[in-house]
């Protein structure tokens, strides 16, 4: 690991001043950043420790019915907050389907949003990677790429975004609150992560010095609580990243789908909102034919980036599964194997 200066500012303003300098990187719990630094993938010359910044570790109910989650709230604390899990069950299930209990105890909400791709070529400093080194090329294109993107990829980069948490969040129109040199601003989470295009090294819409301070779920997001699931296919049942995953959240009124929210994980460089599929479902009866049509719409623009054509079919099946389970009703308690299609819980 390259050496660095360590600073621990006491205020958000001081953090942004320190974090705006060239080579600086914010440190929260470090569960992804330290791993990247040990591998020589990230080489910050200064770490700005934000873990002691005041007021960022709270979950607040705002007057307009929205929920504000401080960037330093730990993943486990959010997922195990009973009221949160009741109101946003697919988000809690996604959180608990990710990483391990130890990592969830440490990792923060803001850090989860900022985690980097798990593409093996990105992690291997000896491989060509346009994210690490713009213009270097992409060894994943002709390499082991069965887990890579099928939507929104470019010749420059076929990596996927690894977060589970972000998938139901984009479906529920989550908003990111950012402090930067120009003051506070906000951004839909859907606009935080970028598709690679010609500039895969630009992974997010954040500018130098920008610090995510909170995440907000709008009041409408609670309206899906009775019919919301997150389903994730992994190469082993626990403690693995998604091959593909899907969040499905429905409002069912008088036996018809009034509104559907859908997003996919593991398919693109960002959590992928499936708006075309949502439109297919609006007003439809909640049945298998509608789910299949929606799934086809969601993947209509997909193409393999390597040995991963199977993911296009798999993503459709997982979307159908997530819709079927969401329509059946959110379980009273998150299943023993969160997000797993193999859960032994009856009906799941």
């Amino acid at each position, binding site marked *: 690991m390259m050496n660095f200066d*360590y600073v621990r500012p006491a205020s958000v303003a001081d953090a942004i001043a320190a974090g705006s300098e060239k080579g600086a990187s914010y440190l929260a719990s470090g569960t992804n950043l330290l791993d990247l630094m040990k591998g020589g993938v990230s080489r910050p010359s200064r770490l700005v420790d934000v873990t002691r910044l005041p007021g960022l570790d709270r979950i607040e109910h705002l007057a307009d019915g929205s929920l504000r989650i401080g960037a330093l709230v730990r993943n486990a604390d959010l997922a195990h907050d009973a009221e949160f899990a009741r109101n946003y069950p697919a988000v809690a299930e996604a959180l608990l389907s990710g990483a391990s209990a*130890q*990592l969830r105890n440490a990792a923060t909400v803001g850090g989860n949003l900022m985690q980097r791709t798990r593409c093996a070529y990105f992690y291997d400093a000896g491989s060509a990677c346009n994210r690490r080194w713009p213009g270097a090329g992409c060894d994943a294109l002709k390499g082991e790429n069965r887990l890579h993107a099928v939507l929104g990829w470019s010749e420059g980069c076929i990596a996927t975004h690894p977060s589970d948490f972000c998938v139901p969040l984009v479906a529920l129109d989550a908003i990111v609150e950012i402090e930067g040199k120009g003051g506070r601003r906000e951004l839909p989470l859907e606009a935080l992560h970028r598709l690679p295009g010609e500039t895969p090294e630009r992974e997010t819409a954040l500018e130098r010095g920008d610090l995510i301070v909170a995440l907000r779920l709008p009041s409408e997001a609670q309206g899906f609580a009775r019919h919301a699931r997150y389903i994730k296919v992994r190469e082993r049942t626990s403690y693995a990243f998604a091959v593909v995953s899907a969040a499905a959240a429905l409002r069912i009124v008088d036996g018809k789908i009034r509104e559907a929210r859908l997003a996919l994980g593991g398919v693109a460089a960002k959590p992928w909102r499936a708006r075309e599929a949502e439109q297919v479902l609006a007003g439809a009866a909640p049945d298998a034919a509608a789910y299949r049509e929606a799934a086809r719409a969601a993947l209509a623009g997909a193409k393999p980036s390597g040995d991963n054509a199977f993911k296009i079919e798999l993503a459709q099946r997982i979307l159908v599964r997530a819709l079927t389970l969401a329509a059946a009703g959110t379980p009273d308690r998150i299943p023993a194997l969160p997000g797993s299609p193999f859960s032994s819980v009856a009906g799941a």
Partner: protein
Amino acid sequence: MNLPLSLTINGVRRDIVLDDPRVTLLDLLRERLDLTGTKKGCDRGQCGACTILVDGRRINSCLALAVSHDGAEITTIEGVGSGGELHPVQAAFIAHDGFQCGFCTPGQIMSGIGLIQEGQAGDDPERVRECMSGNLCRCGAYQGITEAVLEAQSDMTASKQRRSA
């Protein structure tokens, strides 16, 4: 760069001056404080051998910078027994053959203690397995590990009820 920090480790306050910000909690414990019960497996947050409790919560000490944890209360495997008595999770690992080579065992036991404190798994073996998935065992002693955690949890709950009765 001298970085002073103060930690309470297994109930004893330690004032430390680090000369390097890169030191993880794991390396601090093993290489500088001679507490080698916490194991270094992968050093990348994938195996769980380095699991310790920080302020009562289980984390991977390999992915935690020591300097960032100034003021923390840390419990390692060396600190869980008392006066020659094994911790109930330690005793249950022996009773149920929850290990073979033993390398992952301190991490498994610390993770089991953390899991029981979290109180999320109850007596459901599937939930215990899921909540222990961050601890790999190369010898494959998972069956015994799950039984040990379940038994220790039930013993600890029973003795807590006896105490409060």
